[in-house]
């Protein structure tokens, strides 16, 4: 498998789409919330956790997934869902709490579900990991070649459910890939203060599965490792773990003063912008020009603007529909 121009351009587009979406959502989020930060105010009430900086992980992994490969994600889900191919309009509408959103406006930014893409996420730390194992169990029982992927962070890797999930996935040899997005901080807790081992890749050995660590800012490194892990699972080779060391360019949540970060570290991290890294790799091969980069940026800016307009113009769910789509009707 050669890393072709087509593949690289596709990865580039995905990362720019994510970055553009996240940076625009950040701007929208603060509407109405100033001068005093009122989390309930504005068109997007509630919390917001953005993925800027970590695009290479979502793009590099999801490039190998089919729409019917299940993915579970976290409180920071936009990158994964965009990389999986979601309709930006429906996602934006959900973030705005509108009836045209993925969950009819009742889930919001942290509870995005798209059954057509077999995607779910939630704010419970580590909550999605067992779900991915369950999906993988169903896949295996049905004899299908689908693969489940669970994205979670370095904090979630210390949750009991992580350990139970890896263990059972290994015992039953399930087609699931665990992707630890190690951005070095679980909210404000540095990994060195929370995790007994130095790398979560070392935990693979405890659960009898191969585990690798990759540079999460280099989409090609993520792409190669994910390809091997996902193909292995698809062929019945069982579970594996990928630890992608990456950087969160924005706060844990929007409004996070990040007092826990060492001075200057953000600037250091931003030197390793995954979009710039891939752009440079493309240019070095003669596969890319600044004009092309601008064209891609313009395309994504327009797509996000279209999604935003759709969301703003959409209606809220009616109050009498409050209990619709919340419970299964038996």
């Amino acid at each position, binding site marked *: 498998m*050669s*890393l072709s121009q087509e593949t690289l351009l596709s990865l580039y587009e995905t990362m720019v789409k994510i970055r553009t979406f996240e940076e625009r959502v950040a701007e929208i989020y603060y509407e109405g919330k100033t001068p005093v930060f009122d989390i309930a105010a504005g068109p997007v009430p509630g919390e917001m956790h953005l993925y800027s900086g970590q695009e290479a992980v979502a793009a590099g992994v999801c490039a190998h997934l089919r729409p019917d490969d299940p993915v579970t994600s976290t409180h920071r889900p936009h990158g994964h869902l965009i990389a999986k191919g979601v309709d930006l309009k429906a996602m934006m509408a959900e973030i705005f709490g509108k009836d045209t959103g993925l969950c009819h406006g009742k889930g919001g930014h942290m509870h995005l579900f798209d059954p057509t893409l077999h995607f779910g996420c939630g704010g419970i730390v580590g909550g999605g990991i067992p779900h991915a194992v369950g999906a993988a169990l169903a896949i295996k029982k049905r004899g299908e070649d689908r693969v489940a992927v669970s994205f979670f962070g370095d904090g979630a890797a210390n949750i009991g459910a992580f350990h139970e999930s890896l263990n059972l996935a290994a015992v039953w040899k399930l087609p699931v890939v665990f992707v630890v997005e190690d951005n070095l901080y679980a909210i404000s807790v540095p990994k*060195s203060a929370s995790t007994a*081992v*130095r*790398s979560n*890749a*070392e935990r*693979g*050995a405890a659960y009898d599965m*191969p*585990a*690798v*660590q*990759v540079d999460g800012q*280099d989409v*090609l*490194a993520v*792409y*190669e*490792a994910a390809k*091997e*892990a996902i193909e*292995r699972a698809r062929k019945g080779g069982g579970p*594996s773990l990928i*630890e992608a*060391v990456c950087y969160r360019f924005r706060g844990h949540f929007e409004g996070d003063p990040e007092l826990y970060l060492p001075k200057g570290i953000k600037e250091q991290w931003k030197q390793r912008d995954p979009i710039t890294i891939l752009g440079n*790799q493309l240019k*070095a*091969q003669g596969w890319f020009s600044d004009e092309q980069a601008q064209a891609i940026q313009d395309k994504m800016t327009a797509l996000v603007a279209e999604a935003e307009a759709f969301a703003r113009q959409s209606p809220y769910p009616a109050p009498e529909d409050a209990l619709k789509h919340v419970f299964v009707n038996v």
Partner: protein
Amino acid sequence: MTPSVGIIANPASGKDIRRLVAHGSVFDNKEKVNIIRRVLRALDAFGIPHVLAMPDVFGLVLRALEDAQVNLNVDFVDISLTNTGEDSTQAARRMVENGVSCIVTIGGDGTNRVVAKASRDVPLVPISTGTNNVFPSMVEGTLAGLAAAAVALDVNQVRERAVHRARKLVIAREGKPIDLALVDVVVYDERFVASRAIWDVEKMRTLVLVAPHVGTIGASAIAAYLPEMLTAQGHGAWLDLGPDGRRVLVPVGPGLIAPVSIRSLRWLEVGEGGRVLGAPCVLALDGERENPVYPGQDVIIYLSEEGPYVVDIQNAVRTAIEAGFFVI
């Protein structure tokens, strides 16, 4: 000058994609901490007062010091960590500047390669914990510590008797040396560094070896298991790979035995080498993709005898035994 020993332990070795595409050993950092602790205790027992260590984000040496119960002082070189191989090169540079007698390295071929960029005439005591461990030794940590102590104290002229200068391959671009390899260089049919490791023999175009020897695994194995290699010890080799050649079945990675077709083979003496053809491609140095080569670039690879100095651990210990170093 008080004897001082350097320690460079690579926290990243043993965790790359070869755990997925081959059967690379899982070398967890706890084991590395154990090894470092054993080295420290051996150095301490023989009176080495000072160790200079590379800091790392995982705190391997710091953790080794917990429960080590040693009297020696450990200082850390003042470098800003990039969490890449550059840290090991910087650390080696500082250690050389600070006059260490030798540098104990804990890692694989890749670790030793980046240390060798700056080690100059300070000998290495290489303990293997990587994937392909052709350069360093599968040696127990305590023993390596003993050898390092003997070298630091220059017992029985051990620095002349048990230290040799290894050869290396130099990569030069437009006439300027840009990098080096201690074991081999593979011209790989890929354009990007990406996950660094190489594992697809179909993509290996050319193989240049420092000194193939019996028992290696990795790309070097492509030449090392040819019968003529037994009488060609001490030479480097340049092999062009491709279809319709002479076929071998060899261990190109841990647990990865693959057929490879060799179109041509020539021995290399010091100073000899060749030009890299087939750009765009990428050069894998000691098993890891490192330097992309673009069309139009003039890149050559040649064998040099100016590699790092290396302590022969068994010999160093034997030399010390001879002088009664262990009789107190």
